[in-house]
């Protein structure tokens, strides 16, 4: 078998390595056809498959076995086969099921975005916006938990959690010793440290970065500012820590560094995990070597305050085909 396989996603064919998942193949194509992922994190082994937002339809299994797959599959955990044909945004079935998943994720979410520190960079917020759910059909009390301080730097706000398990994988794979996990079952399961133990180790802060919602927040940044008022700048420092490369994003408000996060790529995943010293203790410009403003995608609310895009974008793009088709109507003097 050759090392490269061909896969067609929404009619666009791409050649990827054997063993690539559908989601990663879609990321290589990029653009609108990339399925959203709330729980999958490429840097964390074993993550994914849980949130079901990335489900896609496989309309042709492979060149050898062209039968379609009977159910929608989680694209983050399904590997591509040669000749596979996948439908994502071109399949109404997928969009419907995904809207269903978004609705499920929101029924127990507190929707306290006005006071949530994650607002503006929240995956769940973006996902809900994209799927345009304007009202809820859930007329019952939402499940609630008490807020828990895990250590002096991290706060756990379990109400907002969507149980993606990313932080559990971070604790398992990045930090030395896992001291937190999932308790209970069903919709009352919760992330917890046993008997509110403190999460103490050099990489524990990364759980904040991987959290797709505002369940794990940085207490040093809590209620300091809205993220869209801060200006992200890439910077680095010589970190003494073995596995931390010291490459971060500083979030400025005026001249103050309000918070430090790891650098995130276009899919919202960190490029490399950083240590707690970089994240929590180095909040002076003098600690860092400034590189350049962080590139922020135009679709993000953070970009509205950004000086990388100085030229205002066209608000309304002229549609030439539409104009040509309606030329007579457009040039009428009297419209009615």
């Amino acid at each position, binding site marked *: 078998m050759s090392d490269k396989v061909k896969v067609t996603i929404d009619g666009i064919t791409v050649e990827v390595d054997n063993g690539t998942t559908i989601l990663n193949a879609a990321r290589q194509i990029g653009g609108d056809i990339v399925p959203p992922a709330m729980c999958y994190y490429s840097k964390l082994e074993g993550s994914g498959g849980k949130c079901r937002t990335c489900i896609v339809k496989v309309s042709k299994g492979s060149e050898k076995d062209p039968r379609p797959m009977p159910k929608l599959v*989680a694209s983050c955990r399904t590997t591509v086969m040669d000749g596979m044909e996948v439908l994502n945004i071109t399949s109404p079935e997928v969009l419907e099921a995904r809207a269903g998943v978004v609705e499920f994720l929101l029924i*127990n979410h507190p929707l306290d975005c006005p006071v949530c520190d994650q607002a503006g960079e929240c995956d769940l917020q973006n996902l809900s916006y994209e799927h345009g759910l304007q009202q809820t059909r859930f007329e019952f009390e939402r499940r609630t938990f008490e807020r828990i301080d895990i250590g002096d730097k991290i706060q756990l706000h379990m109400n907002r959690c969507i149980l993606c398990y990313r932080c559990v994988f971070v604790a398992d794979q990045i930090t030395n010793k896992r001291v937190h996990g999932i308790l209970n079952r069903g919709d009352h399961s919760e992330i917890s440290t046993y008997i509110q133990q403190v999460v103490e180790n050099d990489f524990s802060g990364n759980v904040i970065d991987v959290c797709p919602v505002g369940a794990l927040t940085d207490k040093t940044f809590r209620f300091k500012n809205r993220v869209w008022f801060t200006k992200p700048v890439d910077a680095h420092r010589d970190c003494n820590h073995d596995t931390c490369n010291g490459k971060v994003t500083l979030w400025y408000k005026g001249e103050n560094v309000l918070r430090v996060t790891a650098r995130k790529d276009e899919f919202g995943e960190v490029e490399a995990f950083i240590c707690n010293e970089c994240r929590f203790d180095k909040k002076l410009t003098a600690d860092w070597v400034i590189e350049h403003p962080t590139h922020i995608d135009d679709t993000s609310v953070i970009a509205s305050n950004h000086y990388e895009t100085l030229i205002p974008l066209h608000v309304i793009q002229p549609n030439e085909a539409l104009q040509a088709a309606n030329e007579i109507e457009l040039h009428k003097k009297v419209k009615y």
Partner: protein
Amino acid sequence: MSRKLLLEHINVPGINTFEVYRQKGGYRAVEKALKTLTPEEIVEEVKKSGLRGRGGAGFPTGMKWSFLAKPEGVARYLVCNADESEPGTFKDRYLMTHIPHALIEGMIVSSFALGAKVSYIYVRGEMMPQIRILEKAIAEAKAAGFLGKNILGTGYDLELYVQPGGGAYICGEETALLESLEGKRGNPRIKPPFPAIAGLYGCPTVVNNVESIAAIVPIINDGGEEYAKIGIGRSTGTKLISASGNLVKPGVYEIELGLPVEEFIYSDEYCGGIANGKRLKATVAGGSSVPVLPANLTLKLANGEPRLMSYESLSEGGFATGTMLGSGGFIAFDEDQSIVRNTWNFSRFYYHESCGQCSPCREGTGWMEKVLNRIVHGKGNMQDVDLLWDIQRRIEGNTICPLGDAAAWPVASAIRHFRDEFEYYINEPVKSQTVPYGMANYAVPIEKITVTEEK
């Protein structure tokens, strides 16, 4: 009287002890398999028998065994799934309580066929007496030389362990069972890889139901072809049915597959009819997760032919007019029972047992339970029925494991066949709390639709 293969000697006093079981011809299958057959021949016999998994899905056991990867130098495991917790199903508990040696014997033969040196019986945590019974039976078998090192001088070694679970329904899903057996949280794994490739501790593993493993014994004794003669079509052999509900004689029955449902409910050999002279309203034919059917569709197919107790006949007509054999948990409801209330009860069970790993099941089961709770207590409205339909549709097929489907199907089928009862609860919020809805037209035979050619 139909043939009994598993429960033949159930009434012999002391059949739970090694001596009596041996006198009645027990452990012949071990002697025959280990001394005269090769593992490949046993797998071939099981394939010939057409035995289908008795845990619910009905996947052919022989085929499952032949999928097992056999890399050199890697251990293989056989795990027996005795985490029986489906509401309405209690056949495995019955078998383990009364004839534990049938399971042990089946385990030895199956382990030999699969080349497993260590095998596990994962028993639900609530079944403490059964765990003790099995441990005692294993000790007896070991003392008699049927377990341990060099079984019967053939050079085959097998250690058999009983592992109590924590009592979670989700641990009956095979990958969740393996996670639990490894000592982790019982979350289902994301497949592929399937257990036949990477199962327990990453090694190739076969997970089989108690009844499937016990059925290996008669297959080896009499031969696969003999076993395949029992039953009908692709549903071969006998099946244990746990009959419960408003029946004159509820209990565990061994039936030959292909028995008409009507005969099973009304004949004196089996359930003996509906208790207290009432009429049958509805049945759940295979445990709580299969679709509920009204009486007319239970007894007859949509085309007017009698429905049989077999994998094919029960699922005839798909979800529109059929159900599934499932694990054989047969629940009958008489005319006074409320299907809406029962649906709520099932829904509550799935809400409680959802592991919380994937979103549709975690959030959807709770939502359905809350909406049904409202309807049952006379506080529902008409949109709720459509809402329920929408929720179940969005859960079904979008989850990691079949629990999501299992939670969705009873709700879907209840709405499909008993929508008027839901409407009764909504339109008569006070009356519905005390007066049952009754039979309506659930037992009226369905008119046979015949196609007439126009001339």
